[in-house]
């Protein structure tokens, strides 16, 4: 059985049917990517998994535990963390405090220290800036902080919503290098991206989302060579 199993979820915004019978799964140790155009429902999917939105029907199970019945803040405790679109770090808290907020549900001090070391290994910049207010960081640094903060919750699965958004190409490469490092340190990641090219380079499997439903599911290698994916999502003629 997969670590995270999403089955036939239907999500509505009022009358708008945003996710239609969406199913996907993530195994332990994988990077799985969910690609799709702007407005396809990628963020909606992650918000539903992390409990900000409630599906009208369908199930979300982590190791067999049905999560749709919990409010968002209790889902964190059960091992899923969401790095939201636009980073959403706390600008008036210091970098250190932001990381402590990531560890809000972790009571084990020993574990917190280990995780903090891991975070600082991957993001040495955060260590240099730990006394600075989050709001004073650059866009790339804020993305690092958002990812580091999420790692502090000691998750079983980590959701990343468009880490490349609004970053210069050089920074995008370095952020994805960080994603690889996070994966190497043992994280299981569900990565949402509009930038299909780079997402498929780090992921092992991928789903293509089109107006709220899964259009394609395959290994990253196959998706990279798929005609439709190349045309529509990688901008090739």
């Amino acid at each position: 059985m997969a670590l995270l199993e999403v089955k036939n979820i239907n999500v509505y915004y009022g009358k708008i049917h945003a996710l239609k019978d969406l199913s996907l799964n993530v195994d332990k140790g994988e990077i799985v990517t969910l690609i799709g155009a702007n407005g396809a429902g990628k963020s909606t999917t992650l918000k539903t998994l992390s409990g900000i939105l409630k599906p009208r029907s369908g199930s979300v199970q982590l190791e067999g535990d049905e999560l749709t019945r919990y409010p968002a803040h209790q889902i964190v405790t059960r091992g899923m963390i969401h790095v939201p679109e636009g980073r959403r770090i706390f600008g008036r808290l210091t970098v250190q405090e932001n990381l402590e907020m990531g560890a809000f549900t972790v009571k084990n001090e020993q574990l917190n220290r280990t995780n903090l070391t891991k975070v600082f290994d991957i993001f040495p910049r955060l260590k240099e800036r730990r006394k600075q207010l989050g709001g004073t960081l650059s866009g790339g640094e804020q993305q690092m902080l958002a990812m580091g903060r999420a790692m502090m919750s000691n998750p079983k699965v980590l959701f990343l919503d468009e880490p490349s958004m609004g970053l210069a190409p050089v920074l995008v490469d370095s952020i994805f290098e960080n994603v690889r490092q996070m994966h190497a340190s043992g994280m299981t990641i569900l990565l949402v991206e509009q930038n299909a090219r780079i997402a498929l380079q780090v992921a092992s499997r991928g789903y293509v989302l089109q107006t709220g439903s899964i259009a394609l599911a395959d290994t990253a290698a196959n998706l990279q060579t798929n005609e439709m994916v190349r045309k529509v999502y990688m901008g090739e003629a």
Partner: protein
Amino acid sequence: MPTKFQRWKERITATDIVMWFIGFALLVFIILGSILTLRAGRYTPVQWFDFVIYGLAQGSIYALVAMGYTLVYGVLRMINFAHSEVFMSGPFTAYYVAAYFYRSSLLESHPVICLIIVFIVSMTISTLIAFLLERIAYRPLRNAPRLIPLITAIGASFTLMYLFRGLYGTGFQAYPVWEIFSGKWALFKGLEIGKIQVFVIFAAALVMVALYLFIQRTRIGKAVRSVSEDKEAASLMGVDIDKTISVTFIIGGAAAGAAGVLYALVFKQVFFMMGFIPGIKAFTAAVLGGIGNIPGAMLGGLLLGLLESIGPALFLDGFNIAAPYQLKDAIAFLVLVLVLIFRPTGLLGERLAVKKA
């Protein structure tokens, strides 16, 4: 190609010019008044010293109450107009305990223990009222348009006021006097300092420091700050928003309950509308310091207290205005108007947001 000046000119409206004119006139008035007062030399240095001490004592009470406004504004982006009744409910209830202590002579034999109990009772009641207020009146409106909780707050303010009027009556009740706070300590060269003022300043400072450390250093304090910034992101970190909002009302309520006893000790009376004026003053202080900003509320409170106590003599006496001290409320509200015109973000408010923009 418009010049910088032309573009600037386009953004300026007639209202702006009128506002600046009013502001400028007030500034001239204040400076002129101060010069005239100081030249006339009607007040001795000892009197100025007294003004400062009274102002600081009054200001620390405002600061404590302002903290409640600012904390709640932080997490809910609303002005809790019923906070003035949270401030009234504690000391008014504790009055009955104090009166009992007085009648039974316990107050005379064990003044400190009695005082502590009065504080505990007042803070408990204010905290409870604040907590229930949020649960009953505000929580169901969490996702309503912003005007609705604001109007509810005004309604809640009157409801509480008249609830306590019904409970305890319409009269002024004379708060028992603690002998330990009567009189003054002589300093040097004729300077004296009221014992009660010293107590108020120290007690308020103690509560403020405790509150500040709680917000800055503890896990729950960090949760409060993160909820103030971004509720959704906070819940994604595992923060229970409802619980955190309750905590915010609880600490605001406790501070108001403590402030209420200090107020009752200084003015030696309580009644059901006692929260109204200090409530608006504390709100003014919170706006002055920058609503949502905790150090701002402290600073705003102290500044407002000082302005109120020094202002009438300094700004108005020079013009030979009769009984300038009666105009202290006018000064406080003038401050509110001026802040809203010239620096709507307050002294310390939202500096980061400005930088981001």
